[in-house]
C-alpha cells in the first residue's frame, strides 16, 4: 500500500505507466512539468511536480510551490483529489463525473493554474495522456491520508 498523496504514490503511478508504455506511445509523447497541488483541508498544502518527458515520467519531487516550478498545476482539496482517485479505483477508470476535464472546467472542485494561457493550453494538448496516467491508479494499492 502506498500512501496518497506522497512522492512514493506518484512514483508508483509513474512506474505503472512506464510498464504500460505501448499505450502511452499510442497516445503520443508528452513534454511538460505538471504540478499537483493538494490543499490538505486546512492543514496546509502539499505540492508535487511530475516531469513528463516523451512517454514516461522522468521524475517526481515534492515542492513548496508547484505553480512556480511547473508548466501548469492541477489544484484541488485533499477531498477532491481523494474522491477522484477513489472513483478511478471503484470503476477501473473515472466515471463521467470524475475525468480531469470535468473536475477542472468549472474551477471547482479542481482548477488548472499556470502563468499564462499558453501553458494552460498544454493541459488541453496533452489531456488524454494525463487522463491515462491518472487512470493507472485503478490498480494501485493506495492508503488514503484520510477517510
Amino acid at each position, binding site marked *: 500500500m502506498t500512501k496518497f498523496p506522497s512522492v512514493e504514490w506518484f512514483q508508483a503511478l509513474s512506474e505503472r505507466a512506464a510498464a504500460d508504455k505501448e499505450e502511452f506511445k499510442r497516445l503520443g509523447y508528452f513534454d511538460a512539468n505538471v504540478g499537483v497541488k493538494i490543499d490538505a483541508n486546512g492543514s496546509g498544502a502539499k505540492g508535487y511536480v511530475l516531469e513528463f518527458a516523451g512517454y514516461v515520467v522522468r521524475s517526481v519531487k515534492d515542492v513548496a510551490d508547484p505553480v512556480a516550478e511547473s508548466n501548469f498545476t492541477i489544484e484541488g482539496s485533499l477531498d477532491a483529489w481523494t474522491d477522484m482517485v477513489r472513483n478511478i479505483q471503484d470503476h477501473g477508470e473515472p466515471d*463521467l463525473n470524475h475525468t480531469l*476535464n470535468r473536475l477542472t472546467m468549472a474551477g471547482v472542485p479542481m482548477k488548472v493554474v499556470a502563468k499564462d*494561457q*499558453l501553458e494552460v493550453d498544454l493541459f*488541453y494538448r496533452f489531456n488524454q495522456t494525463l487522463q491515462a496516467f491518472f487512470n493507472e491508479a485503478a490498480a494501485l494499492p493506495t492508503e488514503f491520508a484520510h477517510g
Partner: protein
Amino acid sequence: MTQAPAIPKELLAKAVSRGWTSERAASDTIELALAKGFSLEQIGVAMDMGLTPERAAEYLQMASALRAPGGNVFNDQQSEYIDQLKKGRFDLEWLNDPRPTVGIRATMKDPERGLTLQDINRAYAGVPEDAPEYRTMAPRGSAFDADVPDMGYVYNQKYQVWSDNVVALYEEACSRQWSATRDIPWGELKPLPPDLERAQCQIATLLTEVEMIASDFPAKWLWQMNQHFHEVKMFLCTQAMDEARHLEVFRKRALANGGGLMRCLTGTETFLKSILHAPTYVQGSFLMHVLGEGLVLDIFRGGEFLAKNKTEKEIYRLCIQDEARHVSYGTMHLKYFLEHHPEREKAIAEMHALAEVAELGIPGFLTNPFIIEPLAVLMGDGVKGMDKGMEAVRLVWVRMREEYLNRCAIAGFDRRDLTKVPAQAPF
C-alpha cells in the same frame, strides 16, 4: 514534312475569350505548339482547362517535340545524354554540390521518440531566419539551378507565416494522431432519452459543419507560402487532417445513435465564409486559429464535461488535444507577426480594427439558441433541467471570453480594455 494545319478562326476567338492577349499572340503560340506536334484539338482542350498564354509559352519552351520525325520523343539534351550513356559515360554532375552537406549526421535527442524535425534542424539548415531569395520547392539548404521556375508564392517573409512553436507542434501533431473509426469506443454508445440525444446531435451537427473550415482555410493558403518555411506548411497539413477527422467523428456521432443530423444556420455559415474569404493569411488565421478555434475548444471542453457516455468523453477529449494545438499555433503566429512586422504599429492597428468586428462573433455564438439551448439541455440532464443547465452556458461565456483575451495578451495584442464583449452572460 507535313504542313501544319491552318488555325481555325474559332480557336483564335476562343483564345482571346480565355484572356490570351490578342489573335496575333495566340496565333504565334499555337503555331509553335503545332510545330512541336500538338494537335488543334489538344490546344483547344488546354485552353478550356485554363491554360494561360504565359504558361503555354513556358511549357513549349521546355517541351520535347510531341511528334518529332521518326517518333523520337527526346529533346537534344536528352538525346545527347543517351548517347553518352550508350558509351558508358555518366554525367555525375549531381555529385558536384556547391554547398555540400555530405557528412551531416543529425542525431536523435531521444531515440525512443525517433528522429525529429528539431533534431535535423539542429544539424543543418534549421529554423530559417532569412527571407528566401527564390520562390522554389527546392528544399531549404539544398543546391538548385539558378533558373528554377518561380512558383508564384505570395508569402515569402517569415513573419507572414511563422510561429516559434510550429516545429514542435508539427511533431506533436504527428505523434498524437488518432482514428475516429478505431480509437473511439463506439460500442459504448447507448440509447439516450430523446431530448438528450437531440441536444447532443444539434451540437454534433454544428461541429460537423464548422470543423472543416479549418481544413479548407489552410489548404487555400498553403500553396501561397514559400516552401522555405516548410514546417509551417507541414503543420497546416496536420491541421487539415485533424479537422477532417473532426468532421468525421461528429458526423458519425450524429448518425450513430438515433438523433441524426440537425439544423445549420445562415449566421454560422456567414462566419465561416468570413474566415474562408479573409483577404490575408494573418487575418484569417486570427479569425480561425485564435478566435474561432478558441471558442470551439471551449465547446469541446464543455462537450467532455457534459458527455453522457464514454464514447462522447473520448471524442471530445481527443478533439480538445487537436484543437489546442491549432490555437497555440495561431496565438504564437499572431505574436510573431506583430513583433516582426516592418510596420508594427500599423499592423497592430489593423488587427485591432479586425478584432473589434470579429469579437462580435462571441456574443453571436453564445446567444444562438441552436448552440446554447442544446448545451443547457445536456447540462440540465433534459429539457426539464434547462434553467439549471444555463449555469453551464454562463460559465462557458466567461471562460471563452477570458481565454480569448489571455491568448491575445500573449500575442502582445491586448484587447482586455478594448473588447465590447460583456464579461458576464447577459442572461
